[in-house]
């Protein structure tokens, strides 16, 4: 099918994009890589009278270093760029690998991180890992810029805290203490992941402060809080033993539905499997990429 007719705007400054989006309100949508938006428009699931193409705004592109050792990622940076950027490879190799495995090369080459987060299609790889990394977002709106945690930005399936007229400008990943480890595992037999689990381990005493976040399975990334607490500070082997023991039980509490990617029961089972693997990958006990 074909999309409904729309007016295409191509601003080259963030302020102009914000003004256009504010002017047209719900009749307008920002357009980044288009890998989600255009498909939905062609299927006529979505239609907008005004499409604001952000690709001409240079200020939305590129990756740079944060002074605390973290990263600043322009919202229009593609997955492919993230997978191959020297700063990302150096500071967040696990995230670079995650980007290298997003969907397929066409999606990676066109699809942007900002578009991915703002569209909030749950069956995606970036959100779980970025939540585990405490990523923050900077949004520009008619009233100026505001900053919020990604974990608070994603409200549910296809739903975010982005207000009408706002543009996601950049994603900031705070610097991590030396010795921090990260791993990610996702699985699904269709085009998109059914379940993904990110494990980030920050050094703490003889062990780690663990952050285990489950993605794709439901509307927003979910923390396996009980497990995180039980593994906290334990030596590696003990933490993994606690994880192996408690993964299935922790997964049982995760929201899930039966759908074409599998039954809720099976997907919760995957949460346990992938949590163990992501943690082992973070600890270097198996390859960073599956």
């Amino acid at each position, binding site marked *: *099918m*074909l999309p*409904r*007719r729309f007016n295409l705007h191509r601003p080259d400054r963030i302020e102009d994009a914000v003004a256009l989006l504010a002017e047209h309100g719900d009749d307008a949508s920002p357009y980044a890589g288009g890998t989600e938006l255009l*498909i939905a428009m*062609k*299927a006529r699931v979505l239609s907008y009278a005004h499409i604001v193409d952000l690709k001409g705004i240079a200020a939305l592109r590129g990756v740079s270093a944060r002074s605390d050792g973290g990263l600043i990622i322009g919202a229009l940076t593609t997955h492919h760029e993230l997978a191959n950027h020297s700063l990302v490879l150096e500071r967040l190799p696990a995230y670079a690998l995650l980007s290298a495995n997003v969907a*397929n090369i066409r999606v990676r080459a066109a699809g942007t991180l900002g578009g991915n987060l703002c569209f909030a299609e749950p069956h995606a790889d970036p959100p779980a890992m970025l939540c585990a990394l405490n990523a923050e977002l900077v949004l520009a709106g008619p009233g100026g810029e505001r900053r919020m945690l990604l974990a608070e930005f994603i409200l549910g399936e296809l739903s975010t805290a982005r207000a009408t007229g706002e543009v996601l400008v950049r994603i900031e990943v705070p610097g991590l203490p030396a010795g921090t480890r990260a791993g990610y595992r996702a*699985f699904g*037999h*269709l*085009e*998109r992941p059914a379940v993904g689990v990110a494990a980030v381990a920050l050094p703490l005493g003889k062990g780690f402060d663990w952050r285990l976040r489950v993605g794709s399975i439901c509307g927003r990334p979910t923390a396996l809080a009980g497990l995180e607490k039980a593994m906290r500070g334990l030596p590696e082997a003990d933490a993994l033993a606690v994880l192996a023991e408690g993964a299935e039980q922790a997964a049982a509490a995760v929201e899930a539905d039966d759908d*074409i990617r*599998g*039954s809720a029961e*099976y997907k919760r*089972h*995957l949460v346990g*499997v992938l949590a163990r693997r992501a943690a082992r990958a973070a600890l270097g006990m198996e390859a960073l990429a599956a």
Partner: protein
Amino acid sequence: MDAARHLHNTGEIRGDYLEKVTGQAQFASDVVIPGMLHGRVLRSPLPHARIRSIDVSAALAMPGVVAVLTGADLAELSAGRNSHWGLYLRDRPLVAIDRVRYVGDPVAAVAALDEFTAEEALDAILVDYDPLPHVTDAREAMAPDAPLLHEKMDKIQNFYFRGGTNPVEGTNIFQHYQYAHGDVEAAFSRAHRVFEDSFRFPMVVHAAMEPHVVIADWREDSITLWSGAQSPTTVQKALSLLFGIDMAKIRVITPYVGGGFGGKSSVKIDPLVTALSWKAKRPVRVCLSVSESMLTCRRLSADIELKTAVDAGGKLLGKSVRVVMNGGAYADTGPAVAVKAAIRAIGPYHIPNLKLESYAVYTNTVPGAAFRSIGGPPAVWATESQMDVIADALQIDPVDFRLRNMLDKGGLVKPDLRPIDVDMPGMLRRGLAAMDEAGGNSRASGVAVAASDPGIHALGSALVRMKIDCSVLILTNTIELGQGAHGVLRAVASRVLGQPLARIKVATPDTDLAPYDWVTGASRSTVIMGLAVEEACAEISREVRQLAAELYGGEAAAYVLADGGVAGPNGFTSLLDLMVRANGIDSGEFVGLGRITPRYRNGDFSRMPLFWETAVGVGETEIDVETGEVRLTRYVSVADVGRVMNRKSAEGQDEGAAIQALGHTLYEELVYEDGQPLNASMIDYHVPAIDEAPREFHTVLIESGDGPGPGGARGMGEGAILPMAPVISNSLARQYGVRVRELPLTPERVWRAIREVQRDARRGK
């Protein structure tokens, strides 16, 4: 034989490759006709409903909209003729008249100046539906109280396939096939063991790279079509009946087609697009989206029940096959598919007592249609899975068990069919050896074999024209859809006419110019059109040599065609010189006609099948026990193709068929819920990609040289789709003790089966 091999298998790059990789090749979807409008189709959102009314006034009022076609137009269009069409049953209206029968059923069509306007106009059409009870499952559709899709069964005989169908009036059953030889009940009662197993095969789509596309130009007394059609001549015939125009005035042109796999066989969207052109009085192009192609046709899904009796020595005593196929909303070629599904479940085995029964049933789903080896994949999946189940129970090696029962060359699969013309035990042994040579372990691999009887009609002709410069033009209605048929025809002409391949061209198929051919499908083109071209070229060769003998002396037999002319006792003469000497000017051409009919070779070509299409698959798998993910790691595919005409094309066909089968084995299924297809888009329907192909794939092509085609060739391209599902399933059973009886083998299904095995092990079973 070596000379023949050398001449056939030239290894020359196919003519279409360069055109395709440089973007020069013209596909039906590239064609632009002056004055052409763009059409879009409004489809039913409901699985089953009466249409109370359709209001097109708002759509018609939109600037740029030229015409809107609805069922209300058909009385005028058909003017006393039938407005319904079909291949076995006249069950499908040109466009919905008063009722829709599946989500996606065409309700109306708009022709506009551009595609966007046409698409927008669809939104402006108001349809008032009165929902009816629906049924999407074949078994439920067979129940006495099931909603009825078609009140009458309007049968057609000998239209596309020989014979007709055997529907059950007053039910949804549009085909009921039965066959028996021997006494299967007696065999069951005296057997050592009887095995009863059921298997399920999913609804899968063809997923050709190019969706369905047709440009139709209706005129008062003629129709011209540019269509991505596998059977232009059947389209021509169907349109003649629907529109009351002589066949000779209906022209179907078929540029390159971007894949068909049966999904463009017989007739598909051609009548609808032609009707829209009739309404608009202008040429109209309709190019479906991939999602719409998924709502146009698909493979028939199947439930297969097998009951098989064996003696204590592992000999098959008897077998009963019962297949229930979900045929969708319109019968299309489903009746033939159901028959083949039953026959292809026999396998290359000696079965003294046999009973076959199959049903094809209407449901409120996408119409079922032909798909690469009709009925074959479900049948072989069931039979070859059960062969391993039986071998396991009898504690016989599954290969030994097969060999104990396998027919030798000349053996009868079914007495009314041509004896099997391939050494199946030899093929199986070659497959096992190839696996071991590749570093695998054939003793631990999954193994499956298949023998299918291609439903070929030996009806096709070719015209060949040789110019004075010895360049050659082949006129055929065999289409090129990526399989390499035109390359094969060029190779045949090159050999017979002694001219280099570079000087031989196949014209774009066009029913105004090229003679009749039945269909490009059923693995028939190499044999039927190959022979037709061979015959046509032989006629030219005879004529040239006779003329040379007359003009230059000696016997015609002493002359041979050579590059640029003819060589004889007195040396070489160019064709140009020969023509000048014969006709006085350097002009003219030689024309040859080759005709293949069932009467060919003293009627031997009327005997079915023309040849057996056989396959052996040997595969190794890996399983992720925790997720249930299955990966095929190494695969050997064997086929006796008689003669390899072009190795790249032949291997490509073999690999392509096997990897297509990986789709229905591991990933693909069109899922229905509440009458709605849940995943009719490439987002949620996964076709295997290169990452999922095995790391090693070995194609073994046996050239026994005894097929009916040119140089002893058999057809190929549909065999390798058959063994994949049972190979993987048998491999899982052999390595992990897991037996899943429903495809696709999704990770969840495999995981559940593993969990079951683990529980049984814990209980000490």
